[in-house]
């Protein structure tokens, strides 16, 4: 394995993280938050020192880079990023235990939004900003950002494709333009534009500027950290509706936006994943709306019912995890629908988590084919999506992904159930679902109005791993722990 090139990439990542901390530090200075200033300066010092050391150790790195390095590098980079990103919380003393700080920042970078803090307003503006900003970076991916800014170099840049593939969600990741760097830059450009639009609309909805920026970061990354203790329930209905729309927008495959820019509208309208995604959203909103209409204090009239059920559906399917109402008090069917939406997740190539709509679509098509083949064993059938043939290898990968997904859910569920806090089955299962699918709030003791503080340190590490596994789609993290990674040859 080419350790040196990996060190160099890690050095870059830490340097980028340091730069990302500068606005938070500025806010800390502006709000005269001495502890936060120490927190950020300390973290930046550590990051710079590590980055310098890594740059020094990788002076004469060779450029050879294969799938194995790409996977391990991506997995490691996210862990290193989180280890350093947790330092401002810890050094400032706002989150006294390092494990909690680590859980919080992993939750941030993986755009989960699961928190260990009950009084978020006490964190201070600078820390809150950093928490929300971690969503924004984690949404599109810090390595993709690295690819967008890394200086164009030598001949064998194709190896970097492994990084893009490891970090971007979906069954088949490709470039949208020939150059890797341009691809990454276009992705970030669209991401920034949508985020800025979101901020502007939220400001129109009378949201304060700081809140608007942080909420937009959380929406863009489909994260879910709020900046007030009341979540999003405290903002105007207009701001809530804006957030609903933008959550759904960020749950769409970004190549759809590229097609729109290229004026290929027919391809957009005919996109099967987009159609299924919108269909699921619409059906869920109607079902939940019918179930909760008039049943709770928040859903007395039609406007409130539609607003709240649409918000919750958008929030869960895109794996954001904002809440405007406590959906834990809803009846069983709406909650069951939300659990199902947790499984499905957002579209491939978006910033959301979960299994992804396109994988669900492919799995459904595969089941249909298998059922058909029982009666017509000799018929040759090809699975298509958007009219194009899906290679059998992709189908094998999708099936394999589902297998690994189920295993991880089961093992994590068992491990969390062993926690000495002895939470209910619903709590533990929804905690696994909410962290592994990068959603945030679960049900019962980890519901929309509660948090993850009471879990033991061990359980928090398990859930942190689950969040990373979910965000990076399992294999980059598995690669770090697989013995074959370290074998020679």
């Amino acid at each position: 394995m080419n350790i040196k090139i990996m060190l160099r990439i890690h050095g870059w990542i830490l340097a980028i993280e340091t730069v990302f901390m500068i606005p938070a530090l500025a806010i800390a200075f502006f709000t005269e938050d001495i502890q936060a200033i120490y927190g950020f300066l300390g973290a930046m010092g550590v990051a710079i020192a590590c980055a310098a050391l890594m740059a020094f150790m990788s002076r004469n790195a060779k450029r050879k880079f294969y799938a194995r390095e790409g996977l391990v590098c991506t997995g490691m980079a996210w862990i290193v990023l989180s280890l350093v990103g947790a330092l401002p919380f810890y050094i400032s003393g706002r989150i006294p235990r390092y494990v909690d700080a680590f859980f919080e920042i992993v939750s941030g970078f993986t755009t989960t939004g699961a928190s260990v803090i009950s009084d978020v307003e006490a964190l201070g503006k600078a820390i809150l900003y950093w928490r929300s900003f971690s969503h924004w970076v984690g949404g599109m991916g810090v390595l993709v950002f690295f690819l967008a800014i890394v200086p164009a170099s030598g001949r064998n840049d194709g190896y970097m494709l492994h990084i893009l593939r490891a970090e971007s969600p979906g069954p088949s990741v490709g470039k949208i333009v020939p150059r890797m760097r341009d691809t990454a830059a276009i992705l970030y450009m669209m991401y920034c534009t949508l985020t800025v639009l979101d901020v502007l609309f939220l400001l129109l909805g009378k949201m304060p500027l700081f809140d608007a920026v942080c909420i937009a970061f959380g929406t863009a990354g489909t994260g879910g950290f709020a900046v007030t203790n009341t979540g999003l329930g405290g903002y105007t209905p207009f701001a809530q509706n804006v957030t609903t729309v933008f959550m759904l927008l960020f749950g769409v495959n970004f190549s759809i936006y590229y097609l729109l820019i290229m004026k290929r509208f027919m391809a957009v309208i005919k996109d099967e994943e987009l159609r299924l995604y919108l269909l699921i959203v619409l059906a869920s909103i109607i079902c939940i709306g019918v179930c909760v209409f008039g049943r709770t204090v928040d859903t007395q009239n039609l406007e409130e019912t539609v607003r709240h059920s649409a918000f919750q559906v958008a929030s869960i399917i895109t794996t954001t995890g904002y809440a405007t109402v406590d959906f834990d008090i809803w009846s069983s069917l709406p909650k069951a629908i939300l659990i199902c939406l947790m499984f499905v997740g957002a579209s491939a190539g978006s910033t959301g988590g979960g299994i992804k709509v396109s994988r669900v679509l492919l799995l459904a098509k595969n089941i249909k084919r298998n059922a058909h083949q029982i009666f017509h064993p000799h018929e040759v059938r090809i699975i298509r999506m958007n009219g194009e043939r899906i290679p059998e290898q992709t189908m094998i990968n999708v099936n394999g992904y589902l297998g690994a997904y189920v295993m991880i859910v089961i093992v994590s569920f068992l491990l969390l159930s062993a926690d000495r806090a002895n939470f209910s089955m619903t709590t533990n299962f929804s905690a696994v679902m909410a962290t592994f699918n990068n959603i945030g709030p679960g049900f019962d003791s980890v519901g929309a109005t509660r948090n993850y503080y009471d879990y033991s340190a061990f359980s928090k590490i398990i859930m942190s791993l689950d969040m990373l596994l979910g965000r990076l789609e399992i294999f980059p993290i598995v690669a770090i722990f697989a013995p074959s990674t370290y074998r020679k040859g």
Partner: protein
Amino acid sequence: MRIIIAGDGKVGHMLTRHLSGEGHDLTLIDNDPSALETTVERYDVMSVVGNCGSMETLRSAGVDKADLLITATGQDELNLLCCMTAHGMNPELHTIARIRTPDYMESTYTMRKLFALSLVVNPERQTAREIDRLMRYPGYLKREKFANGLVELVELKIDAESPLDGVPLHQLTQVAHVQVLVCTVVRDGKAVTPSGDFVLQADDHIYVTGAAKNLSLLLKNIGIATPKIRNVIIAGAGGTSYYLTQLLCRENVNVKIIDPNRERCEKFAEAFPSATVVEGDVSIRSVLDREKLSQADAVVSMTGIDELNVILSLYADSLKVPQVITKLGRGENRKLLEQLPIGSIVSPKELCCDTITRYVRAMGNQAGSAVSIHTIANDQAEAIEFAVEEGTKHLGEPLKAFRLKKNVLVASITHGRNIEVPNGESVMRPGDRVVIVANGDMVIRNLNDIFA
């Protein structure tokens, strides 16, 4: 530039490596997804699976915005169809087609407009020409022309008996009695830029620049015999052999072609009445002995099998045949094979890529950019010709007054018809042609890139 390459075979792959390294945006088309996957993992390019002759595929490859299309699929007809279709879709598009079938040569050259071709590349004919050029001056393993043929760069191998064995480069002029410059030495497969203290050894491959006449003088002075070639044996009756036989017959050289396939032999016998065509298997030694391999002035191994070519050349070398030329279809093992005494190596694939790359460079030619570029020393170094312009830095200063980048060498300066082997006192003036040799991975595309 936006370039589409149709066909991800040997040539397609090599072009991808060169052109992607030079900063062009590439899109590859092939109907084999696994071949494309390998390429996409190695190079920063985009791929489209499909038939390159269909408008559908060309559209998804972005032909409407492309500047150049290069077709290098295995089928000539498909290459032509692809170029015509693409040109119909985008009249601004430049097209390059690789055409190998001799029967199409005339039509593609005379009807280039009709086929919408900007350039036709025939690797086999090019290879034949290259071999013909090598045969006129046996002793050179490779030969490249610069400054309209005034300056040449040649590759020589130093034998154990050579007077150059053990000579440090600063004494080269005293030993060889001629002004030339050794710009690159390949020792044990690695290319180095030698300094004055560098001592030459047997088995080194050296790349020498100088005036064409000085180089032939060099051959004479260091005792590399250059007899006139009269009898040539060509193994294999393929496309390249066809073009080579055509050229050699015109020069009244006695050509003997050996091929195991009766049909091909008959075709050659029909086309070249003055040549001797023998049906026989060159992998059988008795056949070679019967055909008097040892008495040939030159042996060209050009069967379709690289391994057989190498063995045959080794045998010819052991029989002390003065000139041995080996064709290699695959480039990968070249570094290994270069160590063996198999004479000059020619690779149609490389020649074809060089031609296309040169065309691409000419398309994107701006002020100060390279006039021509040749890869030497198994792709480890480049010899680049530049025209010195008003914008060039350090004009009129002697070379010793400023520093060049590491592993970069000014190999020759031509003022008008006056060729100079540069030393510390040499100066560059506007209008001069200079040849730069750069070793290693650095990409030099502008004369001002050479300064440190």
